């Protein structure tokens, strides 16, 4: 069913697709205009996320992480436009993306180390046998918590930020409607607060996309180098 959030999720995903379609239409060595913006974005993800965390072998997984980063980023930013909601502001979406990341990184691990090899690698090397029965379930549980925390982190940040902006906005309007001297002072103070929170939310929207993408890269790196720590 199409809810408010899933409508804006669809809009944001469509915008992402259109942006990169237009940006990659005329590829050249020295890009211009929107192509330059797209290239800058992809390069940012490559240098600051993929190469930093995974090294040169991560280049293979760059497309997936770029997709994750920009899908989250466009959704977060769309929610900042007044009257719109962030597609990531609902647990269903973010949890689904967390599960997607979980499936992808485990798939990479199974392909790299083989089925039993990867299962065995959950146990940190050098664990004495009399601790293994305790450590192994804990490690498995911590893996299953990952999609959970990925989803909840993004959802909580976007939803809480959206509520805060909404509360301050409604407060300004309510107090201004009263038209008393105290009301004007409180109203203008909360208007200033609204502007500050807005700037902060722009920052949070970017940071959350960054954190989501960087954790994806970290989990993939962990699956590639399973059993080495």
């Amino acid at each position: 069913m199409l809810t408010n959030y899933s409508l804006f999720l669809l809009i944001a995903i469509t915008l992402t697709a259109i942006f990169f379609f237009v940006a990659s239409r005329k590829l050249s060595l020295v890009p211009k205009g929107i192509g330059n913006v797209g290239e800058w974005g992809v390069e940012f993800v490559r240098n600051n996320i993929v190469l930093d965390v995974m090294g040169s072998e991560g280049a293979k997984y760059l497309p997936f992480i770029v997709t994750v980063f920009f899908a989250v980023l466009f959704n977060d930013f769309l929610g900042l436009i007044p009257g719109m909601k962030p597609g990531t502001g609902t647990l269903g979406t973010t949890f689904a993306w967390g599960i997607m990341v979980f499936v992808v990184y485990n798939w990479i691990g199974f392909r790299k180390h083989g089925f039993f090899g990867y299962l065995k690698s959950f146990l940190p090397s050098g664990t004495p046998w009399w601790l293994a029965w305790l450590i192994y379930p804990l490690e498995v549980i911590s893996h299953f918590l990952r999609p959970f925390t990925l989803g909840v982190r993004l959802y909580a940040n976007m939803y809480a930020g959206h509520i805060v902006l909404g509360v301050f906005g409604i407060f300004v309007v309510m107090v201004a409607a009263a038209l008393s001297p105290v009301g004007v002072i409180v109203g203008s103070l909360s208007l200033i607060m609204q502007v500050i929170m807005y700037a902060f939310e722009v920052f949070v929207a970017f940071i959350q996309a960054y954190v989501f993408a960087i954790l994806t890269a970290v989990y993939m790196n962990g699956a590639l180098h399973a059993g080495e720590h």
Partner: protein
Amino acid sequence: MGGSLSVLGAGLAFGLGAIGPGIGVGFVAGKAIEGMARQPEMAGRIQTTMFIGMALAEAIALLGFVLAFVLQAAK
């Protein structure tokens, strides 16, 4: 009034559960700034590691956040 205790429990679960991760995240940021001030040329790598450390510390607070929802739903 049946649900009031579970609402109280939800508030406590998130409030108390946020203390430790709050200290942890602050500690991560403080130490990262210390490291960046000492070696500005390593700022990029330190920042990346800082965000990973922060995200992992935050995860504990998020468990409390979810627990709050679960408790609130309990009647």
